[in-house]
């Protein structure tokens, strides 16, 4: 089985990788980073979203070999020194979750909204987030959490 090197949350990981294995599968079953979720395997639900070179990416549709050596950030890499990232705190403050299974992917997609638009309009949020599914239907609270987090950010 070939081995590859992934740079995840600032650390280098040398790992085996089966033929055709997705980044999602490597993160979850080889690196033990299970915060990133499987929802559909089609890139349709966003539960598997990670940041690849700063861009929200569906890890279920990304062959692991294709991202060797590139910077990847997962939900486990957002909190720093024991402090929640402002987005994570905003999701808690708005209680923008029910079962929580979509939450990692929502937060990673929201991260990329705020990278592109530090003070996004509702239309901009929807444009970036429409590929993420919350079956419990907490969308209005997720919108509120993103707005709250954006308010906390310094105006450019």
């Amino acid at each position, binding site marked *: 089985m070939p081995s590859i090197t992934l740079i995840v949350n600032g650390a280098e990981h040398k790992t085996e990788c089966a033929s*055709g294995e997705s980044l999602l599968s490597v993160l979850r079953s080889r690196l033990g980073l299970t*915060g990133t979720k499987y929802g559909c395997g089609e890139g349709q639900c966003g539960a598997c979203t990670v940041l690849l070179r700063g861009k929200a990416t569906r890890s279920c549709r990304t062959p692991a070999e294709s991202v060797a050596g590139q910077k990847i950030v997962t939900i486990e890499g957002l909190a720093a020194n024991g402090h*929640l990232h402002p987005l994570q*705190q905003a999701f808690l403050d708005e*209680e923008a979750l*029910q*079962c929580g*299974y979509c939450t990692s992917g929502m937060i990673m997609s929201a991260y990329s909204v705020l990278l592109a638009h530090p003070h996004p309009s509702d239309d901009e949020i929807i444009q970036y987030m429409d590929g993420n599914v919350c079956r419990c*239907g907490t969308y209005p*609270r997720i919108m509120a959490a993103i707005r709250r987090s954006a308010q906390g950010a310094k105006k450019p």
Partner: protein
Amino acid sequence: MKHPAPARPADNDLREEQQHAVEPLRHLFDVNRRDLFKLLGAGLVVGVCRPGVFAQESGRGGRSEEIPHDVASWLHIGADGKITVFTGKVEMGQNIRTSLAQQVAEELRTQTNSITMIMGDTDLTPFDLGTFGSRSTPQMGSQLRKVAAVAREMLLDMAAQRWQADRSALVAHDGAITNSRTKESFSYSELTRGQNLVKVVADDSALTPATQWHVAGTSVPKIDGKAFVTGVHKYTSDLARPGMLHGTILRPKAFNATLVSLDAKEAEKLPGIKIVRDGDFVGIVAPDPQTALNARQVLKAEWSAPHQISEAALFDSLRQGTEGEARRGGFGGGRETGSVQTAMASAAKTLSQTYTAAYIQHAPLEPRAAVAEWEGNKLTVWTGTQRPFAVREELSTAFHIPLNQVRVIVPDTGSAYGGKHTGECAVEAARLAKAAGKPVKLVWTREEEFTWAYFRPAGVIDVKSGIAADGTLVAWEFHNYNSGPAGINTPYSVVNQKSEFHPAKNPPLRQGSYRGLAATANHFARESHMDELAHLAGMDPLAFRLKNITDSRLRAVFETAAERFGWGKQKATPTRGFGIAGGFEKGGYLATCAEIAVDRSMGRIKIVRVVQSFDCGAVVNPNGLRNQISGAIVQGIGGALFEAIHFDNGRISNPYFADYRLPRFSDVPQIEVELIDRKDQPSMGAGETPLMGLAPAVAGAIFSATGIRLRSLPLMAKPLPAA
């Protein structure tokens, strides 16, 4: 289909459990005092059992070795003051881990964060039928309040004894008993240290009234919220065991297919692969999930499948092949009063219409998953299910081992919505683990979940009605074919009425419980029909309903929603419509107003604004409740507008999210929730009923704008015709 049929009662009394396809098995929580304290540590233990059981068993308990059977929940206060609650209920997003803990904290006069909830573990928690039917709040909630209240009184007794003090001077407050005269105080841990006290009480202790609540009734934040936003929480699909392998199943090409031949030569060449074949079952075990999938890809299988009913023939088949006698009477099973026939004959106007609902799926974002591990003949399975004890039963039967050799543990689960009552994935994982001699994890793919789980039953509903010249409802006849009896009875006042449920003998797809059961389809049919009657009577849809309501709580939700919405203030136009609907189910009253925008050139509608009022008695956690209500409205958009399972000759044609449209951010309207907090009424569940008003309110809004009456769910299966 060959799938096991839902359990049906011998008589006409179709009960809630049976609508959820639950066999009411009784297991005994067989534990004696010594076991109990070995399990829990020293301290104080209080359990509660149902009154009938208590009467039979109250001779035991107390200081004797035996604990009464059929205890529904335990509360333990350890020597360290740690409060642990044991309940068979499970958390899957409905927030009961928090709301149940709040209710315990309330009666124990302490903080929610000092309570630990042990949930859904068949070795640790008492038997529970399952988490469904909106029963956690009214039943488990009140039971836990009772055990906590009894524990508090015992602590007061213990403190009075220690101080030799007048008990009336003692107060339980903030996790301690304080003597209000001397200001001396004992923490709970000081009182329970070294004790081995057990008390089992009947389900009739006095409770703190909601008007005096301090912890219950407030918006306590979700317990463990931090674990979810950091990705730390371990769902079943995230678990790992030492030496664990990964499984996958080769699925038949169609339902009811048999395996004609299998060529596994290529697959077996892959590293570490084991093929498990047993009749038509073919499973694969591999060191990693991708290798398992790669092996499945190169298995060459030939299947033989019989011809099966396709979607086009669905509604005819449901109506024709019913199971003999219709079911009336009893809880949720329909009723008959007066004479519909006579009333129809003398009514000023009559109406007869048919409504349908498609098969839809729960599509929980976490698909079915299980981790199974054998130690000799003892089996442990972690799995996301709403019925851990029923899954234990399934495993025990499947592997011919006693119940006490099976342990089912349910980690907080990535949602279910009624879709996870069964243990098929648990059985498959255990089968693979047994063959492999190692722990095995099995996670269903989305395609498997869409095909091999079960569906909300499709249904046909015929409604016949008559009104007097002044708009009084005088006759009402309602027949539901296949979708179910929940919510079948009208909450409107009508003397001559008849409601019947006709189960289909051979529904083409495997069907089962779904959030709200058939009450969603029955509310859609009833409220749509009420809208049509209002039109027939020349009355406003709200005025027509109010004229026929005698229940004051139902009237209150309609009036509250209408006022907040501004009902009647704006006239419908060809591009803007308004609709209203309401009802009563599972102890909750709701009314929903919807505003829609219509784009006739594209044949599309958009739900712009929804106002929903809801009354489920005394509110336990307002923020959690709002989250449930708003979420139910959003989920309801899918079934109302576009969700439908398509199938053809034993195959699901759209088993992917790409082909099964779910509500997304761009579908969400402005949602306003009006809670009616009835502190004088018992707290009822709220996970299901808030789903039921949206579809009929939107259908009414479409009619008000376009004059087009849509009577089939989903409403937007086809674009609206051009104007």
